[in-house]
Structures are given as C-alpha cells and as structure tokens.
C-alpha cells in the first residue's frame, strides 16, 4: 500500500471535511432547528472515521466515531442540539484537527480519552443501538435533498505544489528580463526583422507572464474561511454577541500575499472583537443592537485588492490617543486632535495602547505596528477610518501580486537602486551642512545611501544642485525617516528576482532585479536601515 499517497489524500480530505464541519456547526448554531446540517456533519465525521481507520490512526477514528454517535442521537431525536452538544462537537472538530495536523507533521496523533468520554456521555444509552438508524437515515437523507455538496475535488481542477509554481514564476521573471533586453537592442533597428520578432516575443511573453501569475492566484476565502469560527469563539470568551459578515470571498490574490495576510487579519479581527465592540449592555445603553457586527470584505480595483475590516463598535477616541501620546512624549501637548493618518501613525507606535487593562485576547498593545509593517512589506498601504460611537474601519490596500513591484529608482555613485512604492511617503531635499533631513520643521532620523552602500564622499557634485541632494521620506510602520540619495530617476515596475540569501548579505537588501538595459539593481528594504 502506498502509504504516503494515502496519507496525503487523508490530510487534504480531512482538512476539507473539518473546515466544512466548522461552517456547518456555525450555521446550525444560528438555526438549531435545521436538520440538513446534521446529515452532512454525520457524513463528514463518518468519512474521517473511515479513512483514519484505514490508516490505523485509532485516536482519530475513535474521536470521529464518538462525534458521529452524538450526531446519530441528534438525528434520532434522542438528543436535543443544546449549546453543550454544539460546543462538544466544536471541541471534537478541534480535537480531530489536532490529530490530523499531527499526522501531517509525521507524528502519531494523541488520543483524547476525556473528550471521547464527554461525547459518549452525551449519547443516551438506549440510542446507541444501530438497529434504529436506517429509517431515520433515509428520512434525513431524503430531506437533506439538494442542499448537500458533493465530496471530493471539483471537476477539472488540479492541485499543484506551490514550489513548482514558484519555479515557473521565477523562470518567467527571467524571461521577462531577457525580453526587455532584446526589446532594447531591437529598438536600435527600427523596421528590421529583429524588431518584428522582438515585438512578437514581447507579446507572447506578456501573455505567458499574466497566465502564470493567474495560476498563482487563490481566492481570499482560503484565508477568510477560518475567521467565522475564530470570531464565534472570541465572542464567547469575551462575553460579547458578535456577528461576522464576510463578503468578496471569491476575490483572488497571489498565493504568497494571501498567506502573509492570515496574521494581520487575525490581529485586526481580534482587535475589533476585543477593543472595538462594546459589551452587549454598553451597546444597549447606547441605543444600539446588543449584537455587534464585524465585517470582513475583499474588493478588487485594477491592480489592487482592498481588504476591509470594520466594526460598528465604539470607535477610537482621538483625545484619549492624544493624551497617551503626549504622556509618552510622542507629540506636543498643544497639538491638535490627530487626523486619521496621524491617528494610525500614533496607534502604530509600539507600546502605545488605548487600553489600560491587559486583555487575554489581544494583549496589551493593539499591535497595529506589526500589522502595518506586514502590509508594507507586502508592498501595500493601510488606511484607518473611525467615528466615535459608530465604529472603526481598517482598509488594507494590497498589490495583486508580489512578483512585480512598482518602485522609485534612485541613484548613488552611478548605481541604481529600487525602493518599493509602498514604503515611500514623499521626496524632499537635504541641505549640505545639516546632519539630518528636516521635514516641515521636524528633524527625521536620516541615513545616506552612499554610506550605506560603502561609497565615500557626499556625492555633492553629482546632484543637480551644489550642496543640496534629494532625499526620500520613508514611512515604516508609522515612523518616518529619510534616505539621502544622489539622484531620483523616476518610477518603474520591476520584476523581483529571488535571491539565494548568501551569508553576510546586508538586511537592507530586499531583493534584486534586472533593468531593461540588462544592468542589475538591488531592491532596498528601507525598514532595515533605521
């Protein structure tokens, strides 16, 4: 028996089933009278039981069997689907997931006899007899009717290992670079056969590139689908009534961008549930529905996908944030109330919290700094909107792919460097004798790219103005700093080449690219400079 192959099948099958179980349990919890989810849940547990038993994974199959027994009793009307029963089933799903993931890591799954005992304890003893099952089963299956979802993979799809796709993307990236070089050579011979062929190749490579990028796209649902369960659990933990509305689940993002979103979204949703929403009593007192709403929405606009996390809670109190910021010496006591941009910058300051109490759910800091840093590292931007008493909205604007980055090209000492647009705030000028760049009266932490890359001199004579050099203002996680360069060369879309990380490569090297003229250029990660 080809064990590895069956194990892989077992893993993907069981993960799908468990995800579906979570969805069905959540739906059931909202409509306890429904019978359709019972039949489908039963089949999901049954299926996991069968395949785990075939692989001799007894701890998994025993747990699945116990959960199946509970559902059997519910189907027969011998057990009321109370909160306790549903919670036990949720716990069973978690227990099975733990077992399945252990198998995924190549470890033997551990048994949970307490959980199995809990599940078995729910089943009335006289209902354990299988003799009564068939009639009910037929009736329920008939009633479930068309609401069932066929098992297995959807037709005409293949699962591809991400590494293979990455290799393909990489190869296409190289091809694009080569095409650009060819095009720049062909441009010298206008009207020649070479130019015609080059034009044709350009079009074909363009098509290939977009095809490969499309193959890497995955619907955001693959990350969103875990949140309904998480928010439900959070609500119970916090004693709040929370409804999560999820929209735009079919919107697609590059796999690598999508994977990197799990953490920041988890963070924002936890914040919304914990800090954003009031308790049911507070809401009622404010004339709101007791149940708070958290929305998670994805929408596509051209080359950008915006993921919106919003709540209809208390909003962020600007004056409290200002007080805290003043107390920490971050802003002047006479400063006006921060606008949305300034507010986000203050919230992103590590250690600044609008809560005096430590919460078990989201800790002391709101952790916006970590979220912002991640979004920027993906080449994205973040926006905040908040209205006191009405709620808070975070907008994450993300590039559809990370394989191509829009960058500002800068030069020092004749070399070109790319700075991703997501990190840039604005451009300014540095005046020679000063050690720091000053922006509207505010001195910024400053670095000189010449020194960073190990060039001597100040490059003063290479810039267009004697004694003055351009500087770019970098915004990393809400903190601004300045990077002095010799010359700004304009913006360009660069194809990011993967770099095998040789030991000793400085942290500020974020990647590399080949420019259309064939010259290599480094992509900077300015966050590592300050």
């Amino acid at each position, binding site marked *: *028996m080809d064990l590895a192959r069956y194990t892989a099948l077992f893993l993907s099958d069981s993960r799908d089933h468990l995800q579906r179980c979570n969805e069905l349990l959540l739906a059931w919890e909202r409509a306890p009278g429904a019978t359709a989810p019972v039949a489908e849940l039963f089949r999901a547990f*049954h299926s996991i*039981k069968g395949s785990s038993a075939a692989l001799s994974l007894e701890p998994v199959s025993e747990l699945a069997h116990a959960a199946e027994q509970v559902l059997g009793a519910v189907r027969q009307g011998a057990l009321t689907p109370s909160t306790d029963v549903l919670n036990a089933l949720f716990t069973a799903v978690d227990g099975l997931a733990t077992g399945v993931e252990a198998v995924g890591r190549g470890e033997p799954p551990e048994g949970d006899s307490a959980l199995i005992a809990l599940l078995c304890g729910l089943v009335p003893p006289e209902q354990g007899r*299988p003799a009564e*099952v068939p009639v009910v*089963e*037929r009736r329920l299956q008939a009633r479930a009717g068309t609401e*069932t979802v*066929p098992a*297995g993979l959807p037709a005409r799809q293949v699962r591809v290992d991400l590494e293979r796709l990455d290799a393909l993307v990489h190869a296409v990236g190289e091809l694009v670079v080569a095409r650009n070089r060819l095009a720049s050579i062909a441009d010298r011979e206008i009207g020649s056969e070479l130019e015609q062929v080059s034009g044709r190749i350009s079009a074909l490579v363009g098509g290939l590139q977009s095809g490969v990028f499309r193959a890497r796209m995955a619907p955001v649902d693959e990350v969103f689908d875990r949140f309904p369960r998480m928010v439900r659990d959070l609500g119970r933990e916090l004693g709040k009534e929370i409804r999560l509305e999820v929209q735009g689940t079919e919107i697609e993002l590059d796999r690598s961008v999508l994977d990197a979103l799990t953490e920041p979204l988890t963070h924002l949703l936890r914040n919304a549930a914990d800090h954003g929403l009031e308790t049911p009593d507070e809401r009622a007192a404010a004339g709101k529905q007791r149940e708070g709403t958290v929305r998670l929405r994805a929408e596509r606009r051209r080359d950008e996908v915006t993921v919106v996390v919003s709540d209809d809670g208390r909003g962020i109190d600007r004056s409290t944030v200002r007080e805290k910021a003043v107390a920490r010496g971050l802003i002047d006591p006479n400063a006006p109330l921060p606008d949305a941009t300034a507010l986000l910058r203050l919230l992103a300051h590590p250690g600044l919290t609008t809560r005096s109490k430590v919460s078990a759910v989201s800790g002391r800091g709101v952790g916006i700094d970590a979220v912002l840093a991640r979004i920027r590292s993906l080449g994205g931007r973040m926006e905040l909107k908040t209205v006191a008493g009405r709620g808070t909205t975070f907008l994450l604007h993300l590039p559809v792919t990370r394989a191509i980055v829009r960058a500002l090209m800068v030069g020092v000492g004749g070399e070109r460097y790319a700075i991703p647009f997501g990190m840039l705030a604005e451009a300014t000028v540095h005046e020679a004798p000063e050690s720091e760049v000053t922006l509207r009266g505010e001195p910024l932490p400053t670095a000189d790219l010449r020194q960073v890359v190990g060039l001597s001199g100040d490059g003063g004579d290479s810039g267009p103005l004697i004694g003055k050099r351009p500087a770019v203002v970098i915004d990393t996680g809400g903190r601004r700093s300045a990077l002095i360069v010799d010359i700004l060369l304009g913006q360009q879309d660069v194809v990011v080449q993967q770099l095998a990380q040789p030991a000793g490569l400085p942290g500020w090297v974020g990647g590399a690219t080949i420019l259309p003229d064939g010259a290599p250029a480094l992509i900077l990660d300015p966050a590592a400079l300050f």
Partner: protein
Amino acid sequence: MGHTVLVCDDAIFMRTMITDILTQAGYDVIGEAETGAQAVEKYRQLKPDLVTMDIVMPDMGGIEAVREICKDSPEAKILMCSAMGQQALVVEAIQAGAKDFVVKPFQPSRVLEAVQRLLG
C-alpha cells in the same frame, strides 16, 4: 480482459484505495460515483460486472441505490462496504439486493476474496 467494476463511495480516499486494490489484482475499474444517485446512473450507463457500494453517501444513500439498481437489474452483483457498527444497515442492504459485504477498515485480501467469490 478483467472484470469491470464501478466503485461508489463519497470519500475520495476510499475510492482511491478500493480502485488501487482492484486494479492491482487485474480488475478494470471503469467508473466511480460519489453519491447514490450517481451510482444508479453510472450503473445503467456502464453495466459493470460488479459494484462496490458505500452505505453513507449524500443525495441518496447506498441502500437506496442498491434498491434502485436491483429494480431494473436483479442480477447486479453489489458488494457493500460498511463501517463498523452498521451491521443492521448491512442486513437491510442484503435484503435490498446486495450480494455480500466487507467491513471498513478492510484488508486488501478481504476485499479481493469477496470480489472473487461474487464474480465466480
């Protein structure tokens, strides 16, 4: 030419396993079904020499499918694949027209034994 088989199970895991066992023993798996309704439809279309049938499936369960198939083709050779604890269902399936059963999780040898017995 080996005998033809239709494999019916809602779990891709089980279908793969049964198909592997039968194919390696020289049988020709000519179709798979993941619901009872599909099983009935594919039986009519493919007229296989043998059917392996899971009991718990969406849409239409395995027992119902056996009943449907045997209505038109009483001679159909159907082997039930049941999980432990479903003895009562197996009895019902046999009454509906199934010819034999194996209990999951199964040894390949047990499946082949039952198949050979049915196909003579």
